[in-house]
């Protein structure tokens, strides 16, 4: 399960596929102030990137790659901790 939800932190790990987009959107809708931790995420499917662009949560860590960087450039960074 690449999506773990722990209080206000949502952790995405490994390869996130299109199936993870809908649960992620649901969690983000329910937790508008959530921080999304991407430090362990290897790759995010386009659908997952889109959900993040829509919900604009604070991010911890950024996945490698020019495309994820371009998609997530506008999202705030979570405070350290």
């Amino acid at each position: 399960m690449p999506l773990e939800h722990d209080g206000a932190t949502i952790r995405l790990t490994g390869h996130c596929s299109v199936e993870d987009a809908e649960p992620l959107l649901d969690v983000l809708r329910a937790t508008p102030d959530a921080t999304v931790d991407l430090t362990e995420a290897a790759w995010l499917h386009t659908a997952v990137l889109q959900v993040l662009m829509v919900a604009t949560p604070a991010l911890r860590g950024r996945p490698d790659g020019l495309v994820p960087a371009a998609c997530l450039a506008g999202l705030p960074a979570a405070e350290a901790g």
Partner: protein
Amino acid sequence: MTNALLAQFIPEARELLERAGSGLLALEKAHSAEALDEIFRAVHTLKGTSGLFDIAPLTNLVHAAEDLLVEVRAGQLALEPEIVDGLLDSLDLVGHWIDALETREVLPDDAADAMSGRVVTLRGWLQVGGPAAAASPVASEAAPDWIGALPESVRQAAYAAGGPLIAWSYEPDETCFFRGDDPAHLVEQAPGLLGVRVLPRETVPAPEFCDPVLSWLRFEALCAAPAEALSEHLRYVSDQVQLSPITKDALVILAGPEDTAEVFGDFGVRARALVATEARAELKAAAAALLGIIGPATRQAAALRWIAALAPTADADALQRLVAAIDGAAPARPVSAAMTAPPTAAAPASTGTDAPLRQRAEVILAAQAEMLDVPVEAALDAGRRESVRTVALRCLPHLAPARAQALNAALAQPGDAAALRAVLREGGDTVSAAVVVPAPKAVQKPAVSTAPTVPLAAGAPSEASENGAGSGAAPARMLRVDQAKVDTLMNFAAELTVAKNGLAYLAGRVEQVSGSRQLGREIKEQYAVIDRIAQSLQVGVMAIRMMPVSQVFQRFPRLVRDTMRKLGKEAELVIQGEDTEADKNVLESLADPLIHMVRNALDHGIETPAERLAAGKPAQGTLRLSARQENDNVIIEVADDGKGIDPDVVRDKAVRVGLITPDHAAQMTADEIVNLVFAPGFSTKEQVSDLSGRGVGMDVVRNAVRKAGGDVWLASRLGQGSCVTVQLPLTMAVTRIVTVEARGQQYGVAMDAVAETVKVPLGQIHRIKQRETFVLRDAVIPLVRLADSLGLAPATGAPPDEEAVMVARVGRERIGIVVDGFRERMEVIVRPLDGLLAGLVGFSGTALLGDGRVLLVLNLPDLI
């Protein structure tokens, strides 16, 4: 927000943007010189005002839009739909920046990059040789126009990379995820990827209306790879991709306003010599040095950055073109008219402490001489000379004593303009060359940064015209107030309205306990007075929060236009009743559902022109958006004259997905059937549509509206069109309710919903198809027993001879609700259910009564 000036600017900027935007839409329909003037003035004012703040990208973008409008106004440029798109997009971007300014007082970090992309597009439409220089003198023609939007650093790296370059864009189709595509991955893996820009095809959807399995992105990428390699990589999506091989010169796009400072002429001379002698390191240093002293947003600065980046590697021709881009536009100027340093610099040795004022006075005197050189109509001549005399006399106290004396003596002699001019010039010649009125804009820093550099009156909005002096109506004095303050006031007013109900109880108790009818009556009289005042207070505070629905409607001309263009359909938008007012919160809750409804109407309702003509309708459809007030509700209707909804299709679908049983379906009227589109998960459109998703959303619309205390329903006639009606309370603060009793418990029902109360003899209640009904004035009304609906214990004892029935409106239907009795009417604040009660079905909230009890308020739609 701490900066009062910025706080003033934000609403004004929004109003100007709105004026320009709606003007453009009007202009596209019918050409009108006045509309064009209005747009131009709005954009012009925005440009001028934005100069007060340190927000160069915004000013630059608005400037480019203004230049384009100048051409349009001069008849040099036709206002093609693409140009309107470009202008509207630019205004949208400025709108986003204004939002950012409001929250953070600075523009977003990417503003400069975003600006240059837009400016390239806008300037691209200006005719070559027009008043403003073409954006890119060195760009090749075949390159896509979005290249300039890629970051300058990416383009410079690509230039240095050498080899074949491909610029390509990729719009994955909406359903690509279903086929297993991962567009981001495909782009990431593209051979030789140097840079990529990801943007929404339209706008980023709102979270509530976002469908996570549809794709809505567009990718713009730059690769250093052979075209064949890239084509191979993208072979499965070739229909969604546009490849453009470009030359590296196409990467050099110089955007930004012209800076005409003289210093660029000097740089040009030196740089050409350095290129000619292959002194590349010195060239790079010279460019870097000049960059250090000029503003970063100008076209010249962009060219300098390119020179600095390319100096070591580029061929001499390219560098020479860049140098030409820097000084080519700077006109040769006579030295006497040249602009010099700000007044504080280079002040001549002076004795007084008011040296800046002396210099300023000399500048002003020089301007008087210059002014008198300009010919004038005879009628103005005398006045103008008078004003020059006044100015000259006022300059005297600031001048050096000898000069003042000479000027004073000369002014004392009456004379004509020529004589006055001679006097002003006397002794002024040495100064006038060294003095300047406006310094070049790009070199001079703006007057106020968003962190104020001038002491500003704290928080005081400017007071408009205190003294109208009887000449014309003085403008209304407006007060800008934080909404939170009004909300607080509203809460107090609402609580007062509820608290005063306690007096009514008190009066009753006084009569019971002390038996004093007199005292009870006095309390009731007092209660009536307070009641009246509380109501006035509530009405007054509500009026502050009331906004015309035009605030919500105003975005629709644009939305309809863009959507129609995308769908290849034609529709006219008719807006009615936009002056109808409702509470700000109510209107805000309406905004997103309304967008969805309008999109649905355009997407699924209105047919293509060909289909319409075939059906005997005019090619152009009509979408009517109307608002009106009914009692305590605001009614919004979205009506189209499109193909309507086929109840048979809806019925089949609803049975198929298990929403209703076939038996149930057979009993439902066509009206009831079409309203099933609001049921969760229902979809009327089988195939995925680009605009409104898979038809999901109508349930979201209904939820949003019901959450705001309203309801929504749909009426449709096949082949003739549909009408969605939204009913919302005018305000969400105070609700008038009536209490009803069931099994000894009291419940509240919103008065709005109650049509009437009647006593129905048992004999008149009939069962029709498992459902109790009764007849009220020839209409069959279905009955619901409140106690049964709430799952309360069955009544004990014999049934009464007649039932107390409350006839309520739910949507458009009337329904009879059997209760044990009616109690009182009152005004309450309904609070949403929370805590333990949150999951309770059948109730919209709780209300605290004057005697401290908590009342559950029924949500009638849940009971049916």
